[in-house]
C-alpha cells in the first residue's frame, strides 16, 4: 500500500489564487493517473467543488467531525493524494490543528507524505506568515508559490527581505505560476470546468463544447508551463515515488 499524501494549499489572505493552484494540481495528478480527492474548506460556497464536483467535498476544517472525515480516511480512501484548499487566513490555524491531532508527527515519521503549497500575496504580511508556518511545519515539503496569474506586477518586494524569510525554511522550493491571458482565465471560470477539459474542448460532463480555439491554446500553453514547474520540483515522485513521471501530453 502506497503511502498517502496530503497537500495543503493555503494563503494568509484571499484573492491570491489558492483555488487556481489547487485546480492545476488536481489536473496534474489526473494526467498522471494518480487517484486524487480534494477538500474545499470554503464552506458553504466551495469554489473548488464547482470545478471538480466529483472529487471535491466541502468541509469545515476546524470542526472535529470534518477533520475525522479527512484524516481518518487517509489510509482507506481510494485516492492516494488528498488536496486540501484551505480558506484564506486559516493556514496557520489549520496547521495548528494538524499538530494537535498528531498529524504532523506521523508526517515526520514518514507514514504520510505531507506538502504545503503556500500561495504568496503581494504584501509583506504574507512574508511574516511564512516565518510562522515554517515554525509549525518543520520537515514538510514546503513550496512557496508566486502566483502571477492575474497580474504581472505582483511582486515588488525587496529581494533581500524576501530571501531572509525564504531561507528560514529548510528545503523550501519556489514555484512560479505564470500569467494567463485574462479572457482565457475568465472563460474557464464561466465554463466551470477543469483546465484540462477546457483545453480538450469538453463541457462539465465530458460532452463536446465550443470554446474558442485561441483561448484553449493559451490555456494549454499556460497549463504546460505550470506543470513544467511541478515537474521541476518532482511532485509526482514526491507523492508516489515509483511512478513513471513522463506523462507530458495535455489532453488535445
Amino acid at each position, binding site marked *: 500500500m502506497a503511502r498517502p499524501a496530503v497537500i495543503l494549499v493555503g494563503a494568509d489572505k484571499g484573492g491570491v489564487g489558492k483555488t487556481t493552484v489547487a485546480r492545476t494540481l488536481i489536473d496534474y495528478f489526473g494526467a498522471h493517473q494518480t487517484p486524487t480527492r480534494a477538500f474545499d474548506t470554503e464552506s458553504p460556497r466551495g469554489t473548488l467543488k464547482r470545478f471538480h464536483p466529483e472529487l471535491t467535498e466541502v468541509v469545515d476544517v476546524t470542526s472535529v467531525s470534518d477533520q475525522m472525515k479527512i484524516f481518518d480516511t487517509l489510509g482507506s480512501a481510494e485516492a492516494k493524494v488528498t488536496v486540501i484548499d484551505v480558506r484564506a487566513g486559516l493556514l496557520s490555524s489549520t496547521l495548528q490543528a494538524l499538530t494537535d491531532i498528531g498529524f504532523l508527527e506521523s508526517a515526520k515519521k514518514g507514514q504520510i507524505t505531507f506538502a504545503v503549497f503556500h500561495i504568496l500575496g503581494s504584501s509583506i504580511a504574507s512574508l511574516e506568515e511564512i516565518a510562522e508556518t515554517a515554525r509549525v511545519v518543520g520537515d514538510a515539503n514546503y513550496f512557496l508559490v508566486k502566483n502571477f496569474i492575474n497580474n504581472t506586477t505582483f511582486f515588488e518586494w525587496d529581494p533581500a527581505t524576501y530571501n531572509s524569510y525564504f531561507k528560514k525554511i529548510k528545503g523550501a522550493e519556489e514555484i512560479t505560476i505564470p500569467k494567463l*491571458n485574462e*479572457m*482565457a482565465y475568465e472563460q474557464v471560470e464561466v465554463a466551470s470546468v477543469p483546465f484540462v477539459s477546457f483545453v480538450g474542448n469538453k463541457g462539465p460532463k465530458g460532452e463536446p463544447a465550443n470554446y*474558442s*480555439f*485561441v*483561448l484553449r*491554446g493559451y490555456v494549454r500553453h499556460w497549463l504546460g508551463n505550470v506543470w513544467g514547474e511541478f515537474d521541476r520540483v518532482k511532485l509526482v515522485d514526491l507523492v508516489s515515488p515509483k511512478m513513471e513521471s513522463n506523462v507530458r501530453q495535455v489532453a488535445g
Partner: protein
Amino acid sequence: MSFQSSVTIVASPRQRVGKTLLARLLADFHLQEGRPVATFDLNAGERTLAQFLPERTTVATIRDINGQMALFDRLIADENTTKVIDLGHESFESFFSVAHQIGFVDEARQRSVAVAILFTVTPDQTSIEAYRNLRSRFAGATLAPVHNEIFGPAQHRDKYRLAGGGPGMVRLPVLAPGLRRYIDTPPFSFADLNMGDAVRMPLDAHIEVQRWLRRIYLEFRELDLRILLADLQASIRFKT
C-alpha cells in the same frame, strides 16, 4: 490534405517584396479552380488586398485577444473554404508567436486543414533567420520559399533549405514591363476571364498577362502536389 482545405500564409519580415500580389494571385487561382476562398488582410495602413477582393477579404488584427480569436477561430472553422492570409511585415513576429503558442498548426492538422507558408525570400540576414525559425517552430506546416524574380536571378538556395528536400522554390516570374499598371489598379481580378474589358487592356497585353498567369498557376499546382506529398509522407511515417 491539399489546397482543398488549407490555410496559406503569405509572409516575409520585409516589406515591398510582393506579398500582396502573391496573395491576390493565389486567391484568384483558387477561384479559377472553383474553390470557395476567404482572404485575410493583416497589413497595417493600406488595405490593398481588401481593395482587390472586397467581398472575400476580412481585415484582421492580432494585436489584442479579440482580434486573435476572430482570426484564428475562423481559420480552423468551416473546413471547406480555402483561406489565404496576406501577412504584413509588421505583424510577422506577433502572428507566428501567437500561432506557435496556441498550437495552431497541430489543431488545423487534426481538422484535416493543411497549413502552408509562402515565404518570400530576400538575401538579408533577418529573413534568413526568420525562415530558419519558422522551419523549427512549424514542422507540421509546408514551408515554401518563394523567389520573386523581379529581384534578379539570385536564388539564395543555399540559405533557404527546403523542408524534406522538395522540388525547389516557388517562382514568381516577372511580368513584362508596362503591364503592371493594368493589374495594379483595382477593381481587377485575375480570375475574371474578361479582365481585358474591365481595364481596356490591349489584346497583346492581355495575352502576355495570361501567359504570365499560366506560369504562376503551374507553380501553384506544383505546390499543391507538394502539400499532398508532405501529407502522404507524414501519414506513412505515422503508420510505421
